[in-house]
């Protein structure tokens, strides 16, 4: 909600309010502390001698190295996307297994291109990774706005599937795709 909508670059921190910054630091601290607890388990309180400095260092490094925050993540969008992702990645695995384990290989590999409308860097990286995990497609190259997708079966048109996926990602990253109207202020 703080940086200009079209910022793909990394310098957008000047517009953040101190309240928001403090909030993000505390959320990060809780997250990293949870990560530490996951790693060492709850039975060893002495481990916090190492853990507290590690968590502080992690929060500092994250604040220092993090790219400009976009419009933040939409929790609702993420929750709505999670089941879709699980089902699709199941389908992806089953699809590959079926094609490969049959007596005759049923593949028709080929390349196709797809124009990305996603804006921010994080959303793009997320999308590119997702494409590789979902059925039949593998993101092969990204040049500017053009994503080269390798399809295991190019007789099936993958574009509608990719568009649907991009909509979901846009919702998670609070972006508006061009055909859905102008960007929110």
């Amino acid at each position, binding site marked *: 909600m703080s940086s200009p909508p079209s910022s793909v670059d990394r310098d957008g921190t000047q517009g953040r309010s101190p309240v928001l910054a403090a909030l993000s630091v505390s959320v990060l601290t809780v997250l990293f502390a949870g*990560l530490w*607890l*996951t*790693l060492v*388990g*709850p039975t060893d309180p002495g481990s916090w001698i190492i853990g507290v400095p590690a968590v502080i260092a992690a929060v500092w490094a994250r604040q220092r190295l993090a790219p400009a925050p976009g419009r933040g993540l939409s929790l609702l969008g993420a929750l709505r996307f999670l089941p879709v992702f699980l089902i699709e*990645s*199941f389908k*992806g*695995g*089953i*699809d*590959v*297994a079926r*094609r*490969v*384990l049959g007596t005759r*290989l049923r*593949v028709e*590999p080929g*390349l196709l291109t797809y124009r990305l409308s996603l804006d921010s860097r994080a959303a793009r990286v997320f999308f*590119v*990774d*997702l494409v*590789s*995990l979902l*059925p*039949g497609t*593998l*993101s*092969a*190259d*990204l040049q500017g706005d053009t994503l*080269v997708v*390798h399809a*295991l079966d190019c007789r099936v048109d993958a574009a509608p599937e990719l568009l649907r996926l991009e909509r979901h990602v846009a919702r998670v990253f609070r972006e508006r795709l061009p055909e859905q109207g102008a960007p929110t202020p």
Partner: protein
Amino acid sequence: MVALHWLAAALILAGLLFFVAGTVGLLRLPDALSRLHALTKADNLGLFLVALGLLVANPEPFFALKLLLIWLLVMAAAATGAHLIAKRAVRGDGEDAP
């Protein structure tokens, strides 16, 4: 209790099936990019099912968190690695000559 064990066994077996499928794909598929498909998708699903089966056999919250962390890391690594490897192959780097 017994039912849970059967469920765990079934999940692990299903996971194994996907690992086998991934390896068969790696050996059978015709070109490098297609082999990447088998790797990223089948193996992630296989690991997910095996981890879920182990979790059903041994339901502990911190064990679950650790497994989740492993699965997320593997997924991120597989997807990013696949993209990087595919990019090299698509751009036709000369060193791919045998």
